[in-house]
């Protein structure tokens, strides 16, 4: 993306922040609109899916994961795996009681 490479510190162009913000607003409008459609089973799944996309955008751009060292992405991945194990074990415990 033609970023200046002064060690680890990138100065991100303002336009990227504005574009991400617009995408986040668009996704908010979509998730609210979709919630008015009666979808029963997939409603929650859709809501969580859109939230996950929004979360990824905030992490990558506002929280600079995309511009920083890969270390931070690995740390987040480790937390997500840990969290997935939590969820898996809780539901396994609950499901087979």
């Amino acid at each position, binding site marked *: 993306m033609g970023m200046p490479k002064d060690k*680890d*510190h990138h*100065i*991100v162009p*303002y336009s990227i*922040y*504005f574009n*991400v*913000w617009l995408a*986040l*607003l668009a996704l*908010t409008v979509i*998730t*609210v609109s979709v*919630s008015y459609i009666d979808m029963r089973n997939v*409603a*929650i799944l859709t*809501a*969580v899916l*859109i*939230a996950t996309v*929004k*979360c990824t955008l*905030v*992490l990558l*751009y*506002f*929280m600079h994961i995309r511009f920083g060292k890969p*270390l*931070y992405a690995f*740390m987040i991945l480790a*937390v997500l795996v*840990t*969290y997935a194990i*939590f*969820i898996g074990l*809780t*539901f396994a415990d*609950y499901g087979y009681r």
Partner: protein
Amino acid sequence: MSHGTAAAAEHHHKHHDPEANKIGMWLFLFTEVLLFGTLFIAYAMYLTVHRWDFMAGSAQLDKLMGGANTIILLTSSLTMALAIGALERGKKKQSLILLTTTLLFACGFLGIKSVEWSHKFHLGIWPKSETLAAFPQGEQIFYGLYFTMTGLHALHVIIGAVAILITMALIGRGKVHQGRIDLLENTGLYWHLVDLVWIFLFPLFYLIG
């Protein structure tokens, strides 16, 4: 003697490690993720048991207010990112203005949240209230989670706002500046985390009805 102080100052300067500060901040944020994460697991657990009650509970929340607060928080995340960008470019005044805007958004969020909560209190709905006790069990759990999770989140908004205020004071005094920006960046990370939590709270509580 003056040589000694200069050496001490240099020594002190060497020990300022922005990278370590940033890693420390991320580790703290991970504990926050697990704090809210366990509550989200509780939510998911009870959702599987009380699916219809949760939907009925969700239908009683105001999508417009929740949506407005979502837009407010997303925009405050933008102004926070821009405030960091401004100070990175050495524009102190612009950065302070953007941080003030972020603070105003924080107040707006808390204002709307308090209107929502007082409306529920007015209807007699609060944890362990008599009115709520007459609701189906699943709706009682839904409201229990609603008050716990949005309350904990609002507490984080308040803490974030205080952190922004302190950072602004330090920028004003010149302690945080273009060459030493990590405190502002960490405040920003905290603020974005508050936004991230709300990104999940909003659909799960307001949009499943």
